[in-house]
Protein backbone atom coordinates (compact mmCIF):
# COMPACT_ATOMS: atom_id res chain seq x y z
CA UNK A 1 0.00 0.00 0.00
CA UNK A 2 1.35 3.37 -0.98
CA UNK A 3 1.70 6.13 1.58
CA UNK A 4 0.98 9.31 -0.33
CA UNK A 5 2.94 12.43 0.30
CA UNK A 6 3.88 15.71 -1.31
CA UNK A 7 7.00 17.79 -1.69
CA UNK A 8 6.95 21.56 -2.20
CA UNK A 9 9.93 22.91 -4.08
CA UNK A 10 10.29 26.44 -2.78
CA UNK A 11 12.78 27.31 -5.51
CA UNK A 12 10.23 26.56 -8.15
CA UNK A 13 7.09 28.04 -6.61
CA UNK A 14 6.17 31.44 -8.05
CA UNK A 15 3.19 32.03 -5.78
CA UNK A 16 0.68 32.20 -8.61
CA UNK A 17 -1.98 30.23 -6.76
CA UNK A 18 -2.98 28.28 -9.84
CA UNK A 19 -3.00 25.43 -7.32
CA UNK A 20 -5.63 27.17 -5.22
CA UNK A 21 -7.87 27.83 -8.20
CA UNK A 22 -7.39 24.36 -9.71
CA UNK A 23 -8.41 22.94 -6.37
CA UNK A 24 -11.48 25.15 -6.29
CA UNK A 25 -12.60 23.98 -9.69
CA UNK A 26 -11.80 20.32 -9.07
CA UNK A 27 -13.54 20.28 -5.72
CA UNK A 28 -16.29 22.88 -6.28
CA UNK A 29 -15.15 24.69 -3.17
CA UNK A 30 -17.59 27.24 -1.82
CA UNK A 31 -16.66 30.89 -1.49
CA UNK A 32 -14.06 31.52 1.18
CA UNK A 33 -12.88 27.91 1.35
CA UNK A 34 -9.39 26.86 0.33
CA UNK A 35 -7.94 23.37 0.51
CA UNK A 36 -4.58 24.72 -0.52
CA UNK A 37 -3.11 28.16 -0.86
CA UNK A 38 0.25 29.68 -1.43
CA UNK A 39 1.38 32.41 0.90
CA UNK A 40 4.07 34.99 0.45
CA UNK A 41 6.55 36.42 2.89
CA UNK A 42 8.70 39.47 2.42
CA UNK A 43 12.00 39.03 4.19
CA UNK A 44 14.92 41.37 4.67
CA UNK A 45 15.39 45.07 4.27
CA UNK A 46 15.76 47.11 1.11
CA UNK A 47 17.78 46.47 -0.96
CA UNK A 48 18.67 43.10 0.58
CA UNK A 49 15.16 41.83 0.45
CA UNK A 50 13.33 38.97 -1.15
CA UNK A 51 9.97 37.35 -1.04
CA UNK A 52 9.41 33.68 -0.46
CA UNK A 53 6.36 31.79 -1.59
CA UNK A 54 5.13 29.07 0.70
CA UNK A 55 2.52 26.60 -0.53
CA UNK A 56 0.32 25.21 2.23
CA UNK A 57 -2.01 22.25 2.26
CA UNK A 58 -3.30 19.59 4.65
CA UNK A 59 -0.16 17.69 5.57
CA UNK A 60 -1.96 14.37 5.99
CA UNK A 61 0.09 13.89 9.15
CA UNK A 62 1.24 10.47 10.18
CA UNK A 63 0.26 11.40 13.72
CA UNK A 64 -2.70 13.62 12.94
CA UNK A 65 -3.77 15.78 15.87
CA UNK A 66 -7.06 16.48 14.14
CA UNK A 67 -7.89 12.81 14.16
CA UNK A 68 -7.00 12.49 17.84
CA UNK A 69 -9.00 15.55 18.77
CA UNK A 70 -12.09 14.65 16.77
CA UNK A 71 -14.78 13.54 19.24
CA UNK A 72 -16.83 11.57 16.72
CA UNK A 73 -14.36 9.65 14.61
CA UNK A 74 -15.39 11.68 11.58
CA UNK A 75 -11.74 12.35 10.86
CA UNK A 76 -9.94 9.18 9.94
CA UNK A 77 -6.84 8.08 8.08
CA UNK A 78 -7.11 5.83 5.07
CA UNK A 79 -4.66 2.94 4.79
CA UNK A 80 -2.76 4.95 2.17
CA UNK A 81 -2.26 7.77 4.66
CA UNK A 82 -4.82 10.21 3.33
CA UNK A 83 -6.61 11.92 6.21
CA UNK A 84 -10.31 12.24 5.46
CA UNK A 85 -13.41 13.70 7.05
CA UNK A 86 -16.63 11.69 6.97
CA UNK A 87 -19.25 14.35 6.48
CA UNK A 88 -21.95 12.06 7.85
CA UNK A 89 -20.21 11.79 11.19
CA UNK A 90 -18.88 15.32 11.57
CA UNK A 91 -20.82 17.44 14.06
CA UNK A 92 -18.98 20.67 13.27
CA UNK A 93 -17.57 21.23 16.75
CA UNK A 94 -14.40 22.77 15.33
CA UNK A 95 -12.09 20.86 17.65
CA UNK A 96 -10.10 19.54 14.71
CA UNK A 97 -9.76 23.09 13.39
CA UNK A 98 -8.07 24.28 16.54
CA UNK A 99 -6.11 21.05 16.77
CA UNK A 100 -4.56 21.34 13.30
CA UNK A 101 -1.29 23.26 13.65
CA UNK A 102 -1.44 24.15 9.97
CA UNK A 103 -4.81 25.91 9.93
CA UNK A 104 -5.99 23.72 7.08
CA UNK A 105 -9.57 23.03 8.07
CA UNK A 106 -12.71 25.02 7.47
CA UNK A 107 -16.20 24.60 8.76
CA UNK A 108 -18.83 25.15 6.09
CA UNK A 109 -21.06 27.99 7.19
CA UNK A 110 -24.50 28.44 5.65
CA UNK A 111 -23.57 31.69 3.90
CA UNK A 112 -20.64 30.02 2.16
CA UNK A 113 -23.00 27.62 0.47
CA UNK A 114 -26.03 29.87 0.11
CA UNK A 115 -24.72 33.03 -1.45
CA UNK A 116 -22.89 31.27 -4.26
CA UNK A 117 -19.57 32.13 -5.84
CA UNK A 118 -21.01 35.25 -7.42
CA UNK A 119 -22.57 36.33 -4.16
CA UNK A 120 -26.04 36.83 -5.55
CA UNK A 121 -27.67 33.85 -3.89
CA UNK A 122 -27.99 31.99 -7.18
CA UNK A 123 -25.88 29.00 -8.01
CA UNK A 124 -24.38 28.53 -11.45
CA UNK A 125 -24.77 25.13 -13.14
CA UNK A 126 -21.15 24.51 -12.23
CA UNK A 127 -21.88 25.07 -8.56
CA UNK A 128 -25.10 23.07 -8.69
CA UNK A 129 -23.34 20.01 -10.05
CA UNK A 130 -20.69 20.23 -7.34
CA UNK A 131 -22.31 21.53 -4.20
CA UNK A 132 -23.91 18.21 -3.29
CA UNK A 133 -20.72 16.90 -1.78
CA UNK A 134 -20.90 19.44 1.01
CA UNK A 135 -22.96 19.39 4.19
CA UNK A 136 -23.39 22.68 5.92
CA UNK A 137 -21.95 22.81 9.40
CA UNK A 138 -19.35 20.13 8.77
CA UNK A 139 -15.62 20.53 8.46
CA UNK A 140 -13.84 20.14 5.13
CA UNK A 141 -10.23 20.01 4.03
CA UNK A 142 -7.89 18.76 1.35
CA UNK A 143 -8.25 15.07 0.52
CA UNK A 144 -5.13 14.88 -1.68
CA UNK A 145 -7.76 14.56 -4.44
CA UNK A 146 -8.42 11.03 -3.19
CA UNK A 147 -10.59 10.04 -6.13
CA UNK A 148 -8.06 11.21 -8.69
CA UNK A 149 -5.31 9.45 -6.77
CA UNK A 150 -7.39 6.29 -6.58
CA UNK A 151 -7.72 6.50 -10.34
CA UNK A 152 -3.98 6.81 -10.75
CA UNK A 153 -3.95 10.54 -11.41
CA UNK A 154 -2.21 13.39 -9.69
CA UNK A 155 -4.01 15.78 -7.36
CA UNK A 156 -5.40 18.76 -9.28
CA UNK A 157 -3.01 21.27 -7.71
CA UNK A 158 -0.03 19.12 -8.63
CA UNK A 159 -1.24 18.58 -12.17
CA UNK A 160 -1.71 22.27 -12.86
CA UNK A 161 1.31 23.77 -11.07
CA UNK A 162 3.07 25.72 -13.84
CA UNK A 163 6.51 25.34 -12.32
CA UNK A 164 6.11 21.76 -11.10
CA UNK A 165 6.72 22.99 -7.59
CA UNK A 166 4.44 20.28 -6.20
CA UNK A 167 5.71 16.74 -6.42
CA UNK A 168 3.34 13.97 -5.37
CA UNK A 169 4.03 10.32 -4.86
CA UNK A 170 4.52 7.34 -2.60
CA UNK A 171 6.76 8.15 0.33
CA UNK A 172 7.21 4.47 1.07
CA UNK A 173 8.70 3.84 -2.34
CA UNK A 174 12.44 4.53 -2.22
CA UNK A 175 12.45 5.22 -5.96
CA UNK A 176 9.62 7.75 -5.95
CA UNK A 177 10.36 11.31 -6.97
CA UNK A 178 9.23 12.90 -3.69
CA UNK A 179 11.25 10.44 -1.69
CA UNK A 180 14.35 11.14 -3.75
CA UNK A 181 13.88 14.88 -3.49
CA UNK A 182 13.45 14.68 0.27
CA UNK A 183 16.75 12.85 0.53
CA UNK A 184 18.70 14.81 -2.08
CA UNK A 185 17.59 18.24 -1.01
CA UNK A 186 17.04 17.55 2.65
CA UNK A 187 13.31 18.00 2.80
CA UNK A 188 11.92 19.35 6.01
CA UNK A 189 8.50 19.09 7.47
CA UNK A 190 6.48 22.10 8.54
CA UNK A 191 6.48 22.80 12.27
CA UNK A 192 8.29 19.59 13.24
CA UNK A 193 8.08 20.66 16.89
CA UNK A 194 4.36 19.92 16.79
CA UNK A 195 5.21 16.22 16.53
CA UNK A 196 2.67 15.54 13.83
CA UNK A 197 5.02 13.93 11.33
CA UNK A 198 3.55 15.55 8.23
CA UNK A 199 3.58 13.73 4.92
CA UNK A 200 4.36 17.05 3.25
CA UNK A 201 7.96 18.21 2.91
CA UNK A 202 9.55 21.47 1.84
CA UNK A 203 12.77 21.68 -0.10
CA UNK A 204 14.67 24.82 -1.02
Amino acid at each position, binding site marked *: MARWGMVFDLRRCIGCNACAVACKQENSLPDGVFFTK*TLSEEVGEYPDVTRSY*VPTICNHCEDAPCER*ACPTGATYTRPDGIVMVDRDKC*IGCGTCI*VACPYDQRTRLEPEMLDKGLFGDGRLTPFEEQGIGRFTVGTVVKCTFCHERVDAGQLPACVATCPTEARIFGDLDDPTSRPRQLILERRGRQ*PLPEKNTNPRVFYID
Partner: protein
Amino acid sequence: MIASNRIADGSFRVGVGLQKAWGVQMATAFFFGEAGAGLYFVAQFFDFVLGMTVGLLMVLFGKAGGHVLHLGQPLRGWRALTKVRTSWVSRGLAAIVLFIVAGALHIIDVRAGLLPAGVSQLVAALALAACFVIMIYQGFAMSHSSAITLWSSGLMPVASLTYALLNGVLLTLVFGFGEPFLADRPDTVRLLQVLAVALMLYGLVTVLSLLHGARHASEAGRQSVALLLQGGFARWFVPLVIGAGFVVSALMMLAAPPDFAWMLAVAGLELTGYYAFRVLVFKAGGYDPALSLAYRFRH
Protein backbone atom coordinates in the same frame (compact mmCIF):
# COMPACT_ATOMS: atom_id res chain seq x y z
CA MET B 1 4.07 47.04 6.85
CA ILE B 2 3.96 43.98 4.66
CA ALA B 3 7.10 42.56 6.20
CA SER B 4 6.64 43.48 9.81
CA ASN B 5 2.93 42.92 10.33
CA ARG B 6 2.97 39.31 11.36
CA ILE B 7 -0.77 38.82 11.78
CA ALA B 8 -1.88 37.45 8.42
CA ASP B 9 -5.58 37.87 9.10
CA GLY B 10 -6.94 35.92 6.18
CA SER B 11 -4.54 37.37 3.63
CA PHE B 12 -2.14 35.17 1.72
CA ARG B 13 0.85 36.17 3.80
CA VAL B 14 3.08 34.00 5.87
CA GLY B 15 2.29 35.01 9.40
CA VAL B 16 0.30 34.17 12.43
CA GLY B 17 -3.28 33.22 11.63
CA LEU B 18 -5.82 33.87 14.34
CA GLN B 19 -8.13 30.96 14.97
CA LYS B 20 -11.76 31.71 14.22
CA ALA B 21 -13.30 28.32 14.90
CA TRP B 22 -14.02 28.90 18.55
CA GLY B 23 -15.57 32.22 19.44
CA VAL B 24 -18.06 33.79 21.78
CA GLN B 25 -20.49 30.86 21.77
CA MET B 26 -17.77 28.45 22.76
CA ALA B 27 -16.45 30.90 25.35
CA THR B 28 -19.89 31.22 26.85
CA ALA B 29 -20.27 27.47 27.06
CA PHE B 30 -16.83 27.21 28.69
CA PHE B 31 -17.83 29.98 31.10
CA PHE B 32 -20.95 28.21 32.22
CA GLY B 33 -19.10 24.92 32.44
CA GLU B 34 -16.50 26.17 34.86
CA ALA B 35 -18.84 28.49 36.74
CA GLY B 36 -21.60 25.89 37.08
CA ALA B 37 -19.36 22.95 37.87
CA GLY B 38 -17.39 25.06 40.31
CA LEU B 39 -20.53 26.15 42.10
CA TYR B 40 -21.82 22.60 42.26
CA PHE B 41 -18.49 21.32 43.47
CA VAL B 42 -18.26 23.76 46.37
CA ALA B 43 -21.97 23.53 47.13
CA GLN B 44 -21.89 19.76 47.42
CA PHE B 45 -19.39 20.01 50.25
CA PHE B 46 -21.98 22.00 52.18
CA ASP B 47 -24.96 19.96 50.94
CA PHE B 48 -26.15 23.33 49.67
CA VAL B 49 -29.04 22.28 47.48
CA LEU B 50 -29.73 25.65 45.83
CA GLY B 51 -26.09 25.99 44.89
CA MET B 52 -25.92 22.49 43.51
CA THR B 53 -29.13 23.03 41.58
CA VAL B 54 -28.03 26.32 40.09
CA GLY B 55 -24.64 24.83 39.24
CA LEU B 56 -26.24 21.85 37.57
CA LEU B 57 -28.62 24.04 35.59
CA MET B 58 -25.73 26.25 34.50
CA VAL B 59 -23.90 23.20 33.17
CA LEU B 60 -27.05 21.79 31.58
CA PHE B 61 -28.28 24.90 29.85
CA GLY B 62 -25.28 27.19 29.72
CA LYS B 63 -22.58 24.68 29.01
CA ALA B 64 -24.31 21.90 27.13
CA GLY B 65 -26.77 24.31 25.51
CA GLY B 66 -23.99 26.63 24.46
CA HIS B 67 -22.17 23.75 22.83
CA VAL B 68 -25.26 22.62 20.99
CA LEU B 69 -25.71 26.14 19.64
CA HIS B 70 -22.10 26.14 18.50
CA LEU B 71 -22.25 22.84 16.66
CA GLY B 72 -22.55 22.85 12.90
CA GLN B 73 -24.67 19.72 13.05
CA PRO B 74 -26.30 19.78 16.52
CA LEU B 75 -28.62 16.85 15.88
CA ARG B 76 -25.64 14.57 15.58
CA GLY B 77 -24.11 15.89 18.77
CA TRP B 78 -24.46 12.50 20.46
CA ARG B 79 -21.71 11.23 18.17
CA ALA B 80 -19.26 13.20 20.26
CA LEU B 81 -19.50 10.49 22.89
CA THR B 82 -17.79 7.96 20.68
CA LYS B 83 -14.13 8.83 20.97
CA VAL B 84 -13.52 8.97 24.70
CA ARG B 85 -10.27 7.13 24.20
CA THR B 86 -8.47 9.97 22.43
CA SER B 87 -10.63 13.08 22.47
CA TRP B 88 -10.92 15.48 25.39
CA VAL B 89 -14.11 16.87 23.91
CA SER B 90 -15.51 13.36 23.97
CA ARG B 91 -14.38 12.85 27.54
CA GLY B 92 -15.87 16.14 28.55
CA LEU B 93 -19.19 15.30 27.01
CA ALA B 94 -19.22 11.96 28.82
CA ALA B 95 -18.50 13.80 32.04
CA ILE B 96 -21.31 16.25 31.35
CA VAL B 97 -23.81 13.44 30.79
CA LEU B 98 -22.66 11.59 33.87
CA PHE B 99 -22.66 14.78 35.88
CA ILE B 100 -26.20 15.76 34.87
CA VAL B 101 -27.54 12.33 35.74
CA ALA B 102 -25.57 11.76 38.93
CA GLY B 103 -25.81 15.36 40.03
CA ALA B 104 -29.56 15.46 39.57
CA LEU B 105 -29.94 12.15 41.41
CA HIS B 106 -27.74 13.43 44.19
CA ILE B 107 -29.75 16.65 44.56
CA ILE B 108 -33.00 14.70 44.71
CA ASP B 109 -31.35 12.30 47.11
CA VAL B 110 -30.21 15.12 49.40
CA ARG B 111 -33.73 16.60 49.46
CA ALA B 112 -35.71 13.39 49.59
CA GLY B 113 -33.31 10.73 50.80
CA LEU B 114 -34.42 8.23 48.19
CA LEU B 115 -31.30 6.20 47.76
CA PRO B 116 -29.90 3.56 50.05
CA ALA B 117 -26.78 4.70 51.83
CA GLY B 118 -24.19 2.89 49.72
CA VAL B 119 -25.74 3.97 46.44
CA SER B 120 -26.23 7.47 47.73
CA GLN B 121 -22.53 7.78 48.48
CA LEU B 122 -21.64 6.30 45.13
CA VAL B 123 -23.87 8.77 43.31
CA ALA B 124 -22.45 11.65 45.30
CA ALA B 125 -18.94 10.54 44.51
CA LEU B 126 -19.75 10.05 40.83
CA ALA B 127 -21.35 13.48 40.62
CA LEU B 128 -18.37 15.06 42.30
CA ALA B 129 -15.91 13.20 40.11
CA ALA B 130 -17.76 14.10 36.90
CA CYS B 131 -18.05 17.66 38.13
CA PHE B 132 -14.32 17.72 38.71
CA VAL B 133 -13.68 16.50 35.18
CA ILE B 134 -15.82 19.35 33.85
CA MET B 135 -13.78 21.75 35.95
CA ILE B 136 -10.57 20.69 34.31
CA TYR B 137 -11.23 19.07 30.93
CA GLN B 138 -11.72 22.33 29.09
CA GLY B 139 -8.21 23.17 30.07
CA PHE B 140 -7.02 19.83 28.81
CA ALA B 141 -8.98 20.20 25.60
CA MET B 142 -7.20 23.47 24.99
CA SER B 143 -3.75 22.46 26.14
CA HIS B 144 -4.05 19.34 24.01
CA SER B 145 -4.11 21.59 20.97
CA SER B 146 -0.45 21.92 20.14
CA ALA B 147 -1.60 24.00 17.19
CA ILE B 148 -2.22 27.09 19.26
CA THR B 149 0.68 28.03 21.47
CA LEU B 150 -1.36 30.27 23.73
CA TRP B 151 -3.53 27.32 24.64
CA SER B 152 -1.16 24.42 24.57
CA SER B 153 0.44 25.20 27.91
CA GLY B 154 0.27 22.64 30.69
CA LEU B 155 -0.96 25.44 32.90
CA MET B 156 -4.24 25.62 31.01
CA PRO B 157 -5.94 22.84 33.06
CA VAL B 158 -4.57 24.48 36.18
CA ALA B 159 -6.14 27.76 35.13
CA SER B 160 -9.39 25.94 34.50
CA LEU B 161 -9.40 24.33 37.90
CA THR B 162 -8.41 27.54 39.63
CA TYR B 163 -11.07 29.54 37.89
CA ALA B 164 -13.69 26.84 38.48
CA LEU B 165 -12.93 26.67 42.19
CA LEU B 166 -12.82 30.43 42.45
CA ASN B 167 -16.10 30.77 40.60
CA GLY B 168 -17.55 28.07 42.86
CA VAL B 169 -16.42 29.77 46.04
CA LEU B 170 -17.69 33.20 45.00
CA LEU B 171 -21.01 31.93 43.71
CA THR B 172 -21.44 29.93 46.89
CA LEU B 173 -20.85 33.10 48.88
CA VAL B 174 -23.48 34.86 46.80
CA PHE B 175 -26.13 32.16 46.55
CA GLY B 176 -25.44 30.90 50.06
CA PHE B 177 -25.43 34.31 51.67
CA GLY B 178 -27.98 34.21 54.49
CA GLU B 179 -28.30 30.46 54.22
CA PRO B 180 -27.73 28.71 57.53
CA PHE B 181 -24.49 27.00 56.49
CA LEU B 182 -22.94 30.42 56.12
CA ALA B 183 -25.11 32.71 58.19
CA ASP B 184 -24.63 30.58 61.24
CA ARG B 185 -20.92 30.05 60.75
CA PRO B 186 -18.98 33.29 60.13
CA ASP B 187 -15.71 31.35 60.26
CA THR B 188 -16.82 29.45 57.18
CA VAL B 189 -17.52 32.71 55.40
CA ARG B 190 -14.09 33.96 56.45
CA LEU B 191 -12.53 30.71 55.27
CA LEU B 192 -14.23 30.98 51.90
CA GLN B 193 -13.16 34.60 51.63
CA VAL B 194 -9.56 33.73 52.33
CA LEU B 195 -9.82 30.81 49.93
CA ALA B 196 -11.16 33.16 47.26
CA VAL B 197 -8.29 35.58 47.73
CA ALA B 198 -5.81 32.75 47.64
CA LEU B 199 -7.37 31.41 44.44
CA MET B 200 -7.31 34.87 42.91
CA LEU B 201 -3.62 35.18 43.63
CA TYR B 202 -3.04 31.68 42.37
CA GLY B 203 -5.15 32.38 39.30
CA LEU B 204 -3.31 35.61 38.62
CA VAL B 205 0.04 33.85 38.73
CA THR B 206 -1.32 31.03 36.58
CA VAL B 207 -2.60 33.40 33.93
CA LEU B 208 0.60 35.43 33.95
CA SER B 209 2.62 32.22 33.73
CA LEU B 210 0.47 31.11 30.83
CA LEU B 211 1.25 34.32 29.01
CA HIS B 212 4.88 34.20 29.97
CA GLY B 213 5.22 30.68 28.68
CA ALA B 214 3.35 31.37 25.46
CA ARG B 215 5.37 34.48 24.79
CA HIS B 216 8.58 32.53 24.74
CA ALA B 217 7.28 29.34 23.15
CA SER B 218 6.66 30.36 19.55
CA GLU B 219 5.97 33.22 17.22
CA ALA B 220 2.24 32.66 17.42
CA GLY B 221 2.50 32.65 21.22
CA ARG B 222 4.38 35.92 21.12
CA GLN B 223 1.80 37.48 18.84
CA SER B 224 -1.07 36.18 20.96
CA VAL B 225 0.40 37.62 24.12
CA ALA B 226 1.16 40.89 22.37
CA LEU B 227 -2.46 41.09 21.28
CA LEU B 228 -3.62 40.55 24.85
CA LEU B 229 -1.19 42.85 26.59
CA GLN B 230 -0.42 45.55 23.99
CA GLY B 231 -2.49 45.04 20.89
CA GLY B 232 -6.13 45.21 20.01
CA PHE B 233 -7.34 43.10 22.90
CA ALA B 234 -5.28 44.80 25.63
CA ARG B 235 -7.95 47.36 26.41
CA TRP B 236 -10.19 44.49 27.44
CA PHE B 237 -7.71 41.97 28.76
CA VAL B 238 -5.72 44.15 31.12
CA PRO B 239 -8.58 45.94 32.92
CA LEU B 240 -11.01 43.03 32.91
CA VAL B 241 -9.02 39.83 33.24
CA ILE B 242 -6.14 41.15 35.31
CA GLY B 243 -7.74 44.18 36.92
CA ALA B 244 -11.34 43.30 37.67
CA GLY B 245 -10.90 39.53 37.68
CA PHE B 246 -7.97 39.31 40.06
CA VAL B 247 -6.49 42.48 41.49
CA VAL B 248 -9.56 44.57 42.28
CA SER B 249 -11.66 41.61 43.32
CA ALA B 250 -8.92 40.32 45.63
CA LEU B 251 -8.47 43.71 47.27
CA MET B 252 -12.21 44.08 47.70
CA MET B 253 -12.53 40.61 49.13
CA LEU B 254 -9.79 41.33 51.65
CA ALA B 255 -11.61 44.43 52.74
CA ALA B 256 -15.08 43.00 52.46
CA PRO B 257 -17.46 43.16 55.41
CA PRO B 258 -19.92 40.28 55.63
CA ASP B 259 -22.33 42.01 53.37
CA PHE B 260 -24.31 40.54 50.43
CA ALA B 261 -23.70 43.55 48.20
CA TRP B 262 -19.95 43.14 48.62
CA MET B 263 -20.09 39.45 47.83
CA LEU B 264 -22.19 40.13 44.80
CA ALA B 265 -19.86 42.88 43.65
CA VAL B 266 -16.73 40.77 44.03
CA ALA B 267 -18.34 37.79 42.30
CA GLY B 268 -19.54 40.06 39.52
CA LEU B 269 -16.09 41.51 38.98
CA GLU B 270 -14.40 38.16 39.07
CA LEU B 271 -16.87 36.49 36.73
CA THR B 272 -16.58 39.39 34.33
CA GLY B 273 -12.83 38.92 34.35
CA TYR B 274 -13.23 35.21 33.86
CA TYR B 275 -15.65 35.60 30.96
CA ALA B 276 -13.27 38.08 29.34
CA PHE B 277 -10.48 35.56 29.84
CA ARG B 278 -12.46 32.87 28.05
CA VAL B 279 -13.45 35.10 25.13
CA LEU B 280 -10.08 36.81 24.69
CA VAL B 281 -7.96 33.71 25.01
CA PHE B 282 -10.04 32.21 22.23
CA LYS B 283 -9.80 35.28 20.08
CA ALA B 284 -6.08 35.74 20.59
CA GLY B 285 -5.28 32.12 19.86
CA GLY B 286 -3.09 31.94 16.78
CA TYR B 287 -1.44 29.37 14.54
CA ASP B 288 2.24 29.51 13.80
CA PRO B 289 3.20 29.94 10.16
CA ALA B 290 3.84 26.54 8.65
CA LEU B 291 7.15 27.73 7.28
CA SER B 292 8.72 31.11 7.75
CA LEU B 293 12.02 32.38 6.48
CA ALA B 294 11.79 35.71 8.23
CA TYR B 295 13.96 34.75 11.13
CA ARG B 296 16.79 33.70 8.93
CA PHE B 297 17.10 37.36 8.10
CA ARG B 298 17.52 40.40 10.23
CA HIS B 299 14.15 41.77 11.03
